[in-house]
Every structure is written in C-alpha cells, then in structure tokens.
C-alpha cells in the first residue's frame, strides 16, 4: 500500500505523504464525532455553562454604581474621606446632575436598593430624595450641598459618601467578603459585627451535616444494595422498585410525611407513648432540629447511594467470597477483606452524589430544619428570592462550588477518582 521515497517519507498509494493522508481521513471522522456531540454541547453551553458563568460574574459586578453616578464617582475619587470633612460642592453638583438623569430613567431607586445591602437606610434615602430632587434643576438651582442635606439628612452624613466612594468601582470584592462574614469598609476589610456572623457557621454546618447524611446513607444503603445484588433477579426488581418509590412521590409530599411522622403528636411519638417507652409529658423532639433534617434528607437521598452501590456490587462475583472462605477466612473476614474493598468504588460514587446533592439542598431543611437544621442554601434561596441580593447569592454559590471542587480534588488525591464507578 505504502512505499518509502528517497527522503524516507512514507507515501500512500496515490503518492501523497501517508501522514497527510491519514490526518485527512481522521479529520472526517473527528468532524463526524463533533457533529454528533454538537447539539448536546450547544445545549449544555447555553443552558448550563453560560448561565453559571453569568451567575458567577454577578458576585463581583458593581457596575450599577459607576453607570448610574458616572460623574459623582469621578469627582468623588479626589475626595479624602479621612479628612473628616464632607465632600465639596463639586461632588454635590455632580451628584445632582447624575441623579436628575437617573431619576428620569427611574434608576435611582435601584441604586438605592443596591447600596442598602452595604448600609442600611440607602433604600429610603434614594426613594425619598428622588421624589424631591425631581423638582430641582441641575443648573439653575445650584448650589446644591445645603439643599440636598435639607432634602435628606443622610447627604450630610460623611458615612454616606464614604460608602459611595468604597463602592464606586466596576468590580467589588464586597460580596465575597460578605459571604465569609466580613465586609468592605472605607478603612479596608473588617469582620461583621458578631450579631450578624452567620454565613461561615452555616457553611460549616452544611458541610458537617452533609457528611453525617452521607454517612447514614452509607450505613443504611449498603445492606440494601448488598441484598439487591444477591437475591434472585425477580426479587431484586421488586426491591429496586421499593428503593425507587420515593422518586415517584413529590419531594414536598415526602418531606411533609416526615413531619407527620416526627412531630410531637406524630406517629412515632404516639407509638412510643402508647408502648410506655416515653412519658406523655416528655415527648421526643424529632423535628425542627438537625435530627429532623438528617432523617428526612437521608431518606430522600438514599436511592442516590443505593443505586451506584448496587451497580458496583452486581459486578462482584460471589465466587470471591467462596474463594476467601475456601482459604480459611470466616464470613466476616471474607466480607471485610475481600468483598468490602471491591465495593468501595460504589460507596465512593454514591457518597459523592449524596454529598453534593445534600450541600445544595434547601427545601427539606427549610421545612423540617427548624432553626438549627438549615443549610447555607437556605440563605442563598433567601438572597435570590427575598432580599434580591443576587451578588451575595452568587458569591455564596461560587464559594459552595469551590468547596465542592476542592473536596472532589481531595477525594481524587486520597481515594482516586478512577475508583468511582457509577455502573
């Protein structure tokens, strides 16, 4: 087929160099492969990668300030905030010009909401000032310093201008600082006052409780997965349906069912009191705390642990156990030394799934978690849908993503990611 020329280049039958000929034929294959994945790739890019990128970028974006108050931001740069004096008329006049444009475009209240995250009171200050500043003309009515201070005393507060100066950049690290219970002040970074330090605590709690949930899923799921892979296919199918049953009921229904089970006048307490194990006056508190969250989430996430375990255990031939026993191992030794190590990839896959799902959960902790069983995701949900502080929500989400990636990396270093089998 091919032949060597004088210079040692291998030629294909038609005389073109073999390498080029090969790469041409491969290119077509690669193109075809690419075309096959292209729809999914585009779909993932548009619906997953792009939105996540946008979300993450919000965690540092601050363009609303320089875009709404372009002139003010520029002249405020020259102001020395440590002097203890209010900015001069130049700043106030620039602010007046910026505001009259913003008020016309109805953008000033939006800026007020944005800055209210940094300093309480900005929201009403911008809203109220806006109504009155509408009546002023940015040229005719100069000077403005005293007029503005009369409109709202906040404009005579040096802290107001310090905050504006601190948050005048296009980008800010403020949201990230907020997500670790710190904040950016005109003097630099500072911790939040103690009575507002909650997020680090919630991060810690989320990780610890997710680990506990993962652990209980392993303990409860392992025997089931073992049973599944060792009974006849008929019984295995039936069992598998029972395992999957929770998937067929709505999450809210399942969680509410746990409420009925666990509350103080719930099924479990009633039974315990009826048997006489627990006196009527001392019913157990099983819900609206961490215990409730752990129970309900373990139940909800259990299938995600059982399925990968089952698919791995299915591939472990029972002959290994026989071999171990024939060599003198007791049932326990045979299981622990021979079967268990081979089932670790299933445990690993299940654990990663359950852990990642549980640190992102918020509905169940919200319903059964009470005050001590809520997760960081509950705060993210709050900031997305209630406080509308999407920047902070994005920063919290980014940190969560980084934590997950870091744990994944650690898992890879310690256990090895090729030791994870999903099927």
């Amino acid at each position, binding site marked *: 087929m091919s032949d060597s020329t004088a210079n040692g280049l291998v030629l294909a039958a038609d005389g073109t160099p073999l390498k080029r000929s090969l790469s041409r034929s491969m290119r077509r294959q690669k193109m075809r492969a690419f075309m096959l994945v292209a729809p999914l790739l585009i779909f993932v890019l548009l619906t997953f990668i792009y939105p996540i990128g946008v979300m993450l970028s919000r965690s540092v974006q601050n363009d609303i300030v320089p875009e709404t108050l372009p002139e003010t931001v520029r002249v405020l740069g020259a102001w020395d905030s440590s002097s203890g004096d209010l900015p001069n008329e130049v700043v106030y006049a620039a602010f007046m010009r910026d505001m009259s444009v913003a008020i016309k475009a109805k953008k000033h209240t939006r800026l007020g909401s944005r800055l209210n995250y940094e300093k309480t009171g900005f929201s009403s200050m911008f809203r109220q000032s806006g109504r009155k500043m509408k009546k002023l003309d940015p040229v005719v009515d100069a000077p403005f310093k005293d007029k503005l201070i009369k409109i709202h005393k906040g404009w005579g507060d040096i802290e107001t201008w310090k905050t504006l100066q601190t948050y005048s950049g296009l980008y800010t690290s403020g949201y990230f600082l907020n997500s670790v219970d710190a904040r950016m002040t005109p003097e630099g970074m500072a911790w939040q006052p103690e009575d507002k330090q909650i997020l680090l605590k919630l991060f810690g709690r989320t990780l610890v409780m997710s680990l506990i949930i993962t652990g209980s899923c392993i303990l409860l799921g392992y025997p089931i997965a073992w049973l599944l892979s060792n009974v006849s296919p008929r019984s295995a199918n039936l069992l598998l349906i029972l395992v999957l049953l929770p998937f067929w009921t709505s999450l809210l229904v399942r969680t509410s069912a746990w409420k009925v089970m666990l509350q103080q006048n719930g099924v479990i307490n009633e039974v315990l009191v009826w048997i006489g194990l627990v006196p009527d006056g001392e019913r157990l508190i099983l819900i609206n705390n961490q215990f409730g969250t752990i129970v309900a989430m373990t139940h909800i996430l259990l299938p995600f642990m059982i399925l990968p375990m089952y698919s791995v255990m299915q591939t472990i031939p029972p002959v290994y156990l026989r071999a171990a026993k024939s*060599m*003198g191992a007791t049932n326990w030794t045979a299981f622990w030394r021979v079967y268990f190590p*081979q089932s670790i990839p299933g445990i690993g896959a299940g654990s990663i799934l359950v852990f990642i799902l549980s640190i992102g959960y918020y509905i169940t902790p919200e319903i059964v978690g009470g005050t001590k069983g809520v997760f960081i995701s509950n705060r993210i949900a709050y900031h997305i849908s209630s406080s509308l502080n999407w920047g902070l929500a994005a920063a919290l989400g980014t940190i969560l993503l980084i934590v997950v990636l870091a744990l994944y990396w650690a898992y890879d270093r310690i256990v090895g990611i090729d030791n994870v089998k999903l099927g």
Partner: protein
Amino acid sequence: MANTKKSDAFVEFERVQKSYDGINLVVKDLNLSMPRGEFLTMLGPSGSGKTTCLMMLAGFETATHGDIRLGGTSINNIPPHKRGIGMVFQNYALFPHMTVAENLAFPLEVRKIGKSEREEKVMRALGMVQMQDFAGRRPSQLSGGQQQRIALSRALVFEPELVLMDEPLGALDKQLRETLQFEITNLAHELGITTVYVTHDQTEALTMSDRVAVFENGRIQQLAAPDKLYEEPENSFVAQFIGENNTLEGVIKEIKGGVALVQLDNGDLIDAKPINVTQAGQRTRVSIRPERVEMDKSRLSSDAHTLKAEVLEFIYMGDIFRTRLRVAGSDAFVIKTRNAPDQIRLQPGQIIDIGWLAEDCRALDA
C-alpha cells in the same frame, strides 16, 4: 463400592443426595471413595451434578442426605473455612484489589502465620509455578494463564491435603491448556496432594487423571482409570461421551462363547462383545472406535462378518486420515487411519468392505 475400603479412603461420599427445590434430585445416591494422593476427575456434561458434588465437598452446598467424610470424619457440619481444602476456580477468583503476593498471603494471614514465614511460603508457592517475578503485580496485569498459575499456587500455599479444581482451564486457549494440564498433574503428584478435578473436557480428564468419574443425570455412570474408560465403557452413555465413537443399532441374535451376533436394523450381521446385554432378542447399540475399524480383510479372522461401506468424505488431518462412510444406513460412520507411507487414501464414491475384531465392538444397552 465405597464401603468396602473404608479404612484407607481419604475422601468418601456415602449415599449422598442433593436437591435444590425439593422435587428433583441433582445428585442421586452418590457413593465415591478416594485414596490419599489420588487425582480424580469428575467428568460430565453440564447439569450432570459434578459441580454440585464438588461444592458439597468444599462446603458451599450442603448434602440433602448422606454423609461426606474427609480423612474418616464426617464434614457435613463443618463450615467451609474450617475444612482446610484448597480450591481453584474457573475464573481464577484472584482478588483484584490485592497484588499477587497479597493474594497468596491471604490464606496464611487468616491462619495467623507470622510475617517472615508467610513471605517465605508465598515465594515458595510462587516458585512452584515459576511466577516469583510477578509478586508485586495486580491480577489485572497478568494473562489468563499467569492468573491461573497464581490461583493454583494460592490454593496450594497453605499446604492443604485436598485440592478441588472447578474447570480451572476452561477459559484458556488450547495450547496453554495443554501446558497447564501437564503442570498441574506434575505438581499434584510431586506434592502428593489429593485432587478432585471437575471438567467437561474429556481429553483433559483422560490425560490428567488417575481415575475418572463420568457423571450423567446425577449419577456416576462409570468410575475407572482413563484407559479402561476409553476402551471398556460400561454403557452406551460412557461410550458416546468418551472419545469418538461409531454406533450402530440392532437386535441380539445370539450370544455364544463370549461373542454376540447382532443383526443390525438393515439386516446385516456383525460380531460384538456383549457388555450389558444378556440374551437374544434384546435391542442393543453397538459401539466401535473409529481407529479399530479394519479395511484390510486379511487382518480379520476368516469367518468375521464384514459390512459394505460407501466412502462419503475423506479428510486429511496431518497425522491421521479421517474418512466418513455410509454404513448400514448411517451417514455418520467414521474411520481413522494412520498417515503411513503405504496407507490408501480413499476416494468419495468408493465401495469398500469394513470389519473388526469382535472384542473391539461392544454391544451395549440401547
């Protein structure tokens, strides 16, 4: 048969039965006795009960009825890990998460043998199969043949007196299988181990074993040394199952002087040796090995019966020729002739006379 030599028997099955469903017996009234050091093969088609017997001996299945004894003591109620029986499995069953050395050390560890002694025994066992250099490898890094060598040495490393092998060579190619057959028998004899070997490959059974137990339908059909089994099958199943065989069906005309006169279904008469036929009028299936069929009339006795045969096919197989004939209405009659310089190569369509010595043709149950 087992009860007669109870004293020197090492492995004994006495009236053992096994049923999984309470309706059908997969092992029916099994009696077997093995002296120490014997290499015994259980041979039979799948579903014949041979593997079940092996598993009962290993302790993974319990006998529904009967007694299994090892060294004179009943082991019915001893769990597998206390039986001290080495075992080699069809798919090697090497633990994938352990290195070769760790695999071999496993049975020693569970016996609480010290580290230095363990290492020494592991290396010695690897030495027996020439695999010392692979101690640090994982099973997945080894070829099938290498894995089976490791499995073998793992079964031997704790020096069991009895080793069970469950179709250990089934997954290997022919050439490797032959090499390993040789190695296994050598090793077993050298170490004086009693071996029970299960296979459905009759060549393997014949070449390796001291004795072969042919299983069919939950019973041992014949238990004998390989040559006896081949040459003197006691019934038509064994005759069919062991080696290649030509069968012709007919009725016993008479039995006289240790020779039976058989009238085949197309009317031809032949001579045969009566094995499990006793009287005239019985239907019989006569069995004759392809290599015992004679084409040269001068080598038969003058009054021997011969049959007309039409050559259908001639196959050159190197060391032998294989010729398919139509004989007494059967198209599947085969003869084998040695590839000797003076050997005739028959042509399809040729009509020849064939015959045999009466003792080579066995009249069996129909």
